[in-house]
């Protein structure tokens, strides 16, 4: 083999110069993206305010339906909810507060919405975070294997199974798992808890962590089952694209082992499109999987949202909605920037 050409001080200096411009380009690119994200967030805040006011019905009337209140008390309630102000004042108030991450006070709980969201966000991140890691790993691994031996038995079975699971309604799958593996049916004993994040008489310390893990198995399984197909399919198709490329043929021609061609040459390139997908999903992770949380009574943001809809508790709905939107926007922006850093072709363009 010949000696690498980029050794020696001269080469370093030479290599340093062209690096400079893309670095500044990256900064400008990132700033543009962040600016765009800020505009999007502003628009979402405005849209949220008006969207939730388009929902028919007066919250005060909804809240006082089964409660015998005098007109004075109703007036008081209206004042407490801030609904006695003109819509424009309400709007200004909402925007000023939203910028400070203050989404008002819940009608139902009479507590600051951010407190409620803060209480729930941890358990949601735990569930969906673990779910996402498993789904991404499983999807990418299966997608890679399926594409590499495409048309083979593994390809056919794994793709078919993942597609079936993808098309299954989350609610139905969750309930099915609950009825079989949690409740127990016929010879299958009920192996997992039917609700919640931990046992009522949960032990302390390390055993508590295991208790939570035990509670997490079924919700996580449901979550992974319905989303991993996306990663599998994206990975599979982008790897299939790469397989036909000249550089892969070159790598093979060099006599590299098949395994190495795949790992070192094809997969890194094929990973790029999945990066975007993963980042967008991280945004949704904050929102949690509303359905999964509902089925398994997982005390997260999704559950908070469902309870708020029952109310209807507009401030909580608004707050939860905004937090999820902002998370998605931030993650999208990050995806753009990371993509830019990972792929020289995007930088060049």
């Amino acid at each position, binding site marked *: 083999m010949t000696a690498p050409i980029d050794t020696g001080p001269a080469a370093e200096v030479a290599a340093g110069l062209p690096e400079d411009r893309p670095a500044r380009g990256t900064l400008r690119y990132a700033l543009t993206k962040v600016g765009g994200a800020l505009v999007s967030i502003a628009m979402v805040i405005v849209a949220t305010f008006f969207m939730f006011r388009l*929902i*028919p*019905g*007066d*919250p*005060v*009337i*909804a809240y*006082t*339906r*089964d409660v*015998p*209140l*005098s*007109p004075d008390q*109703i*007036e*008081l309630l*209206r004042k*407490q909810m801030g609904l006695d102000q003109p819509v424009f004042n309400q709007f200004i108030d909402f925007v000023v507060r939203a910028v400070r991450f203050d989404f008002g006070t819940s009608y*139902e*709980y*009479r*507590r600051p919405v951010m407190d409620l969201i803060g*209480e729930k966000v941890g358990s949601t991140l735990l569930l969906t975070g673990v779910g996402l890691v498993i789904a991404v790993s499983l999807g990418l691994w299966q997608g890679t294997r399926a594409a590499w031996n495409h048309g083979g038995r593994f390809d056919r079975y794994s793709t078919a199974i993942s597609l079936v699971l993808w098309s299954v309604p989350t609610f139905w799958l969750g*309930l099915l798992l*609950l*009825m079989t593996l*949690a*409740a127990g049916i016929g010879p299958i*004993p*009920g192996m*997992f*808890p*039917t*609700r*919640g*994040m*931990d*046992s*009522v*008489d949960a*032990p302390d310390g*390390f*055993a508590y962590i*295991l*208790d939570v*893990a*035990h509670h997490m*198995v079924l919700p996580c399984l449901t979550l992974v089952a319905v989303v991993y197909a996306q990663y599998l399919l994206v990975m599979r198709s982008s790897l299939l694209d790469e397989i036909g490329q000249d550089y892969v043929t070159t790598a093979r021609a060099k006599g590299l082992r098949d395994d*190495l061609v795949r790992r070192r040459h094809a997969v890194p390139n094929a990973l790029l499109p999945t990066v975007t997908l993963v980042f967008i999903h991280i945004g949704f992770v904050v929102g949690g999987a509303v359905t999964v949380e*509902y*089925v*398994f*009574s997982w*005390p997260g943001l999704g*559950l*908070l949202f469902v*309870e708020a809809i029952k109310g*209807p508790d507009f401030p909580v709905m608004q707050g939860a909605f905004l937090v999820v939107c902002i998370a998605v926007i931030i993650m999208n922006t990050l995806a753009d920037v990371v993509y830019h850093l990972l792929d020289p072709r995007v930088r060049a363009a």
Partner: protein
Amino acid sequence: MTKWLARLAALGVVFLLTIQGQAALANPEGKKVLRIGSTQSVDSMNPFKAVRLIAGQLQRWSYLFLTTPDPKTLAPSPDLAESWETSPDGLTWTFKIRDTKWSDGTPVTAHDAAWTFNKIMTDDKAKTGNGPAVENFETVTATDDRTLVIKTKAPQASMLENPIPIVPKAAWEKQADIGAYEAEDNPPVNGMYIPYEQKKDQYVKLKANPDYWRGAPKISELQVIFYENPEAAIAGLKKGEIDLIGRLAAPQFEAGAGDATITQWNTPGRRAAYLQINHGATTSDDKPVGDGHPALKDVKVRQALHYAIDKQALVDQVQNGLAVPADGSIVPPMYQDFFWQAEGADKVSFDLAKANQILDDAGYKKGADGVRTMPDDPGKKLEFRFTIHTETPTEEKLAQYLTGWFKEIGITLTTKQLDSNQFTEETGSTALFDIAISGWSVNPDPEEVLATHLCSRRPTPTGDGGGTESFWCNKEYEDLYTNQLKELDRAKRADLIKQMQKNLYVNAPVIAIYYPNNLELYRKDKITSIEPVPAGRSGEGILYGGSSGWPMYTADVKADPGSATASGGGSNTGLIIGIIGGVVVLGLAGVLLARRRKTTADDRE
């Protein structure tokens, strides 16, 4: 490689044993624990703020009230107040406060009660939970440690049904902002159970109070466990993660059938379901509001509709037999003292011929298409809208039956579905309806539900709902209401209340259709005894969701086996955890092996 696997296997075994050991430690002694499932989460542990039924139940289990419904008769009986007297004008009530202790050991005094009521009367933020209950209070004072004096603005017969739990002044007056306090640090209580641990949207744990004035409960702990999803709750009951669940809908109740370990508790309920008829709705200044059909202003038409409803068929077909047809009005038969039943000439039974006859006599002639028209306007057909909630299969089924019967009497009924928010507005405030479904869960004292048909409950001209259930405004009804407020003799008052129900039955601004049963399920292999409220009547009474904490006070259960059962997964919890641990360990082993292989492969390169 073999060495590696052997080490990992050893690690796995150690891991598994550790877990088993720890799981067994979780609940070493065999406690008597009653676990109640709830599909409603606790909105607040602060009684000044909480409005949900679950929070009300928790208050009944952990606090004392001035009085409590007698377990057998449901009439007011002593609780925090040992006895009471009323002044001749009915405006001054003097209560003798029981000598008992808060759970921190300090004595309970009349000053605690006075502070509680005054807090609600003077602090708007304390009104959320029970504001209306002090609206008629002029002053509340403690003349000494044992005497509480309440002066009211007007006589109030329902004084002894006051729904406010008394809190300890010392612990609560420290809270500068009562609206921001969640009481999650478990301030002292004096009821049958003491809340000591809770997780929002997950559970509340209460332990027996040995100092409760009736004596300690038979069980040592009460747990309320939250399920968002009713199907999961039923699964949890069948598996034994919970022992009792109440307030069930028919499908969930029927899921408990055929299970040898489960008792299906099907008793008369506290709810009345009725049709609300737009008889010419007005606002509180007597101006017409809404777009109700003019024919419904005619009491004859409303009565004809009543004759055209086969209530027994509705019970059988719509409620799967789990209800009682309504031969009365808005108070269900469960409340024997106040229930009024139509008899003789008053009684309306399903009779399509009679309904047709009434409409014929009143001049509503049938057109060529079989649909009746207004007597004074042959162009105006008797076409009514029936407003129900979206996605409620029982209400849709009800609508189908009504549509069929009304067609037989020449009336067209079309169904209009609204989401609950809009439903409330159109049927309670803007009056954009003809006929609507409605219902009310009634307390042992029916004053609250009776008040929903008062003139003052109609919406204001600006459209603010006062909580009317019918837009009813009737002189006779108003007078009866005022009189029953003043009538302190229970039997005489009951008579006035029955006349009010008759007024609603005969004039038909609302038509009661059935009284849904109270449906509950519990594990008979766990709960050895429990008394419902009302107690002592065969086949009657409510376990969860009733007007007193009596059932949970009388409940006795088998002790938990002294192992890990409490953690929910049964004795196999440890095993499962072990398996999970094993899988994790094996996964790690796989990764490690793969890495080793990779390194060697790279080296070989």
